[in-house]
């Protein structure tokens, strides 16, 4: 499937593995948080990159033991109205120094992309049926930002 990654529409190289599916020996895979915790050893002993998919109630601190092993953390927005993922992303980026891909998945709408990027997301899976090319315009809708965040740590008053 397609997603937006660093401002471009690309093909997703990661395979989303359901819990019941066996772990492939090679290739890039995305697994659930339960699987990451439960089958940790097995997941590390393979070629290919590892990513995890977490729900809105997983706290960033729970991921700390795994951060260096994860190429992708996919944060799920079960409803677009549930804003916990924004805090989770910011904390992972700014407080815990996570450098891999932060991907917004689930109920992700075009008009949230600007804020999500500011919070540290660099990849986005949009709701099915939405134009990704049209969504790209969302990133440049605002040229001025008041607050510091993951993309620019200093608030405007330190940059004026």
């Amino acid at each position, binding site marked *: 499937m397609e997603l937006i990654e660093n401002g471009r529409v690309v093909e997703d190289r990661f395979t989303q593995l359901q819990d019941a599916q066996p772990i492939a020996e090679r290739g890039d895979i995305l697994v659930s948080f339960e699987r990451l915790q439960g089958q940790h050893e097995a997941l590390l002993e393979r070629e290919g990159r590892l990513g995890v998919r977490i729900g809105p109630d997983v706290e960033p601190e729970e991921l700390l033991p795994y951060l260096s092993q994860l190429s992708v953390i996919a944060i799920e927005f079960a409803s677009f109205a549930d804003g916990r993922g924004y805090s989770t992303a910011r904390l992972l980026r700014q407080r815990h120094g996570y450098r891999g891909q932060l991907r917004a998945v689930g109920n992700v709408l075009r008009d949230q992309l600007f*804020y999500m990027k500011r919070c540290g997301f660099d990849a986005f899976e949009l709701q099915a049926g939405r134009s990704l090319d049209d969504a790209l315009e969302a990133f440049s809708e605002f040229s001025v930002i*008041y607050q510091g965040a993951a993309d620019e740590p200093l608030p405007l*008053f330190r940059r004026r």
Partner: protein
Amino acid sequence: MYQYDSHDQRIVDERARQFRGQVERRLEGSVLENEFKPLRLQNGLYMQLHAYMMRVAIPYGLLSSGQLRKLADIARRYDRGYGHFTTRQNLQYNWPALEDVPKILEELASVQMHAIQTSGNCIRNTTSDHFAGIAPDEVADPRPYAEIIRQWSTFHPEFAYLPRKFKIAVGGSEDDRAAVYFHDIGVFLVRSERGELGFRIVAGGGLGRTPLVAQVVRDFLPEPELLAYLESIMRVYNRFGRRDNKYKARIKILVEALGIEEFRRLVEEEWHKEREQGALLLPAEEVARVAACFEPPPYRQLPPAGAQLEAFRLDRDRGFGHWVKNNVHPHKRPGYAAVTIALKEKGTPPGDVSDYQMERVADLADEFSFGELRATHLQNLVLADVEVSRLRELYEKLSALGLDAANAGKVTDLIACPGLDFCNLANARSIPVALDIMERFEDLDYQSDLGELSIKISGCINACGHHHIGHLGVLGIDKQGVEHYQLMLGGSSGQGASPSLGKIIGPAFDRDAIVPAIETVLQTYLALRSSEDERFIDCYRRVSAQPFKEALYGTH
């Protein structure tokens, strides 16, 4: 007042442009209503009973005459020739067409105004004391801090999808003229023992289904820590606030559930980590930069005007005498006063003002008050810097406009939400009850005798009319399809008396009985008060609900 620089201007221009795109996509069908709704809410556009309703932000209530003229112009060209001032210092238009809203936003942006975050589950308009900067009892002017909070909260990317709406108020004095204790976060300016300026931070206040007075989170927060501390509270709320039940989602529920100790612990743990990064430290230069926009205007050197005010109060023109007694307020500078323009004329819904009146009031602001005015959470306007020697002239001009209601702080200076005449959420109408009260008690001598009274009327439990904190509160309910009204007594917003929540006095009254019931309560007060000087709220607190209950319902 704060002047936009190129950054601030670009933000509102780009927001107007963004919303234009969103409206176009809605009107051409590429975005559905359920996706469009949060977007239009973040631009303050509601769907009400008869039409869209648009809520324009008036940051901490401060307006220039030019901005008021623009609001009048918008009312005339895009609405039905009037606007409604709200209990959060904002202005509402009740009849805009969707395709006009982008244009309205552009017009607002041209005078440094917007409708950003006046709705939705985000940080709303930060409100403040309508006597900010001029009140003699002020510790310091709260407006620079309200402006700093405004900028920090506008388009904050992390807190745009909170569990629920979020309201912040800033107070500059011990006497709470902005109902600060009933906000999600309240910020009071205080001085430490060593004279250092800082803040008392309170949190978890609110009205609605679960009314609560805010609790103190921190007694003294040094000035540079303001934003880091607020950010920490917001992050704790965003992460741990309830999202399972819309009616249990405000921060007050979280504070109550955790207890203030645990809440404080979580906030300060987050605050310490935030401080390590240091990005949110508020430098003195930034405070100074913003505060420079709120420097006092070029006051004249005038002699104290106490004797003149006293003479005015006894004036032959009783209307003028009452107006000076009630609507004219103390000012820091000798010879000056603040004036309330009460938007409480008999026959007009509280807070409503016509386009024509707005334009003339803008002229009066230019003529009498250095071109500025304030909207208050009591649905009135204030001209803050009027020379006492010119009060009569001002009064006469207000009379010609029909804006000379001499009832500030009295029984007919009530507040009311729009209620079932307009609002989707309401159970009963509030405006007709307000109009009846204003008619029943219109005699100024009687109002004088009744003294300081605040009546607050809400059409539903959401309490936009702040009924829990009125000396008398009225709540509209639906009893089997018929409008009824619950009466509660003894609330206080914190102005002139400690903050308290009113208590329901007994079974609800129907439409015909509610105003007579209020009359009975006030008659009972007159009979029970220890002296002419004992205010209703003090009398109630002394004698309790019992005598009022008996007067209303009889003894059983």
